[in-house]
């Protein structure tokens, strides 16, 4: 019996992988329920982080209180981030809301290079070199995007690259209603 098991093990393993591949075929980046939704955004942990830029010292996290703003978790090593980056650039050009970047476990030089190459949509960027803030925010992986309301509550979270559809159909209406 064990001989059969041994001989069949590779097949079994393949079937498991095939099952995941099949499931993967009709997958889309989807909204993930986050325990943070409707809870206070852990901003203090962001405030404690070093800033990637020094140009915007004028803006601090306390300035964001009372505003609707976006937190975008990214890293220059992340391919999904490259996909959503042009969309963030466009969103930033509209000056709709401040976008705060959380450079996650990324070398500062590479973050800089990324922003100078692809454009910088961020009002400010903080560096989470150890990944501690990401844990606090419950980040699965990059990219992730959080929407925070005027009362500093997390109202929305998107896991994976943003798409035009998600921005237009989910983010914009929510931003509009939160701004009122």
């Amino acid at each position, binding site marked *: 019996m064990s001989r059969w098991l041994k001989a069949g093990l590779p097949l079994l393993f393949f079937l498991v992988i095939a099952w995941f591949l099949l499931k993967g*075929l009709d997958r889309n980046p989807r909204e993930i329920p986050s325990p943070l939704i409707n809870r206070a955004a852990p901003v203090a942990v962001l405030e404690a982080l070093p800033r990637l830029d020094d140009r915007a010292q004028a803006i601090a996290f306390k300035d964001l209180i009372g505003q609707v703003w976006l937190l975008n978790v990214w890293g220059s090593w992340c391919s999904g981030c490259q996909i959503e980056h042009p969309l963030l650039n466009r969103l930033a050009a509209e000056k709709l809301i401040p976008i705060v970047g959380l450079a996650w476990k990324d070398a500062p*030089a*590479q973050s800089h*290079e990324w922003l100078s190459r692809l454009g910088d949509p961020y009002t400010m960027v903080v560096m989470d070199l150890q990944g501690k803030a990401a844990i606090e925010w419950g980040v699965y*992986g990059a990219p992730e995007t959080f929407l925070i309301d005027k009362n500093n509550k997390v109202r929305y979270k998107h896991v994976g690259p943003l798409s035009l559809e998600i921005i237009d159909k989910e983010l914009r209406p929510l931003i509009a209603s939160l701004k009122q």
Partner: protein
Amino acid sequence: MTAELGHLALALAMLCGICLAVFPSLGVWRRDARLMAMATPAAYWQLLLVLLAFVCLIENFINHDFSIQLVASHSNRDLPFWYRVAASWGSHEGSMLLWILMLAAWTAALAALSGHLPQAMRARVLAVLGAVSIGFYLFALLTSNPFERVVPAPINGRDLNPLLQDPGMVFHPPLLYMGYVGFSVAFAFAIAGLIEGRFDSAWARWVRPWTNVAWGFLSLGICLGSFWAYYELGWGGWWFWDPVENASFMPWLTGTALIHSLAVTEKRGNFRSWTVLLAILSFSLSLLGTFLVRSGVLTSVHAFATDPTRGVFILMFLCIVIGGSLSLYAARAHSVQASQAYSLLSRESILLANNILMVVAMFAVLLGTLYPLILDSLDMGKISVGPPYFDAVFVPLMLPALFLMAVGPLSRWRDTPVLPLAQRMRWAFAASLVIALLLPLTADSDYKPMTALGLLMAFWVAGGVAMAAFENMKTPSGAVDLSRLALQPGSWWGMQLAHLGVAAFVLGVTLVNSYEIEIEKKLSPGDVLKIEEGLSLRYAETTARQGPNYEAIQVRFELIRDQKVVGELRPEKRRYKASNMVMTEAGIKRSVLGDLYISLGEAVDGGWVTRIQKKPAVNWIWIGVVMIGFGGFWAAADARYRRRRVNSLRASPSDASSKIGKVSG
């Protein structure tokens, strides 16, 4: 009309593929030599027809037939000639046709060069290749017809993605596919072997040269891809652990295990299950790579436009080929077993460790590649797994592999006494240790233990090669005679060259990771930037330049050493007209000692945010991999594989004839 001709040729080629799969199998079953012999013309005609289809596609690209969907979306009137040729495989459909062409070429080559095989084995192997090709024909004809017309035809095409407009595009995909598809031969031999229940050393000897050549091509293909990404993507990295890079790397890892495992199967008759499984695995991973690139389940810079129907088709095909062959393995594994005893320290054990390390490394890469997909399937979020994971798991796995790489070729089959082996290797170890500990002291930067460890491994592997060469030069009387090396067979030379290539690769990786310098600065005309003592860079001028299908802004930098201009670099920003995409073209000054690499970021008031990188010894990475690839070719060219009419029954496991000059007729 050429498109229709190509389409017809492809359909006819599929008929040949069906004949190739059916008639030889029937022939084996009914013991009809004439039916088995039909494999040869079927394989030749198949190649001829696929070649015709492929030439038709290239003709459409060269002559700008924008009524073909593929040409309209991947070419343009201004696209230079060679990129038009390369554009024919720059799309999903075209690359599928390239894949089919490669498969037909390997099949025909096998048909031409397998006259010495027993008739039934030959028929079975070719039939398996024919059966595999049917799946690809169906895929191309039903879901990805490259000859699809578009009405009305556009006046001009949308152009090839500018990233692909590079000499790399001309060579990288064909080389890579030669490797990928080449593993189909080892796969076909494994399946035929399972059916016949035959895995003796003669079987291993038939498979070895084919596997070595496929593996060599795959090495070169990956190397070229890495080299291309280095200069084209503009950030100076040479490996990104991108899902599709991983997809080409996984079959390379199992292929590496396979060529070593085959050595044991040939020389000692052991590791048969390993060999069969690795042969199946290598080709399966090639197919998995195809699936990953074309189904859109993962995000990657390489991914083709996605289409779920294609994904479903390839997944079905994957299940039939991989699931079928693994089921066959499960059913027939008992017939594979055969074992000769060997002790804990022997060449067998070392090669077994190599097999295990390579397969574990493959699984680590597979896990990292599929992890986002697995999490997503379990509704746990969509993530990217980045280099931190891969570096963390990969390096510890490769260290023991590198250590054993030097020991393996010097150890003996069955049993190697520890002490004499350690004695033989003590000078190599002492020398590499001294170099590794002292060399980092000569650098200006801090002493990093990882640098010393990397150097130790590089020189240790090189030391192993040197020891092997030295011992083979010694005459029985103790004198050293260089000419004795010529007595060594091709497989010995190939192995040593490949191992030396690994040493060069490790050396390059270690030095570039330890000592690269990166400066990012805004530079304007006239600025001088000091890179290091006595070496500085001057922003000489900005010029505009017209390319064939792009306009470029070029910045000329002068490299100044001790007040003298010693060279210049010309990084560019290009705007491709048809697609309106901006590309960064790095300026690189290359040398064996290292590169100076400049890329332009954003333009800011009269100057550029410029990224300057000094990359010591970076070229050794690719020189090393080229040596690895040619090592595979050299080993495949071993004279004993070229002997015709070997009586397979007489071939003994310990084939002592591995000496050049004994090419018997």
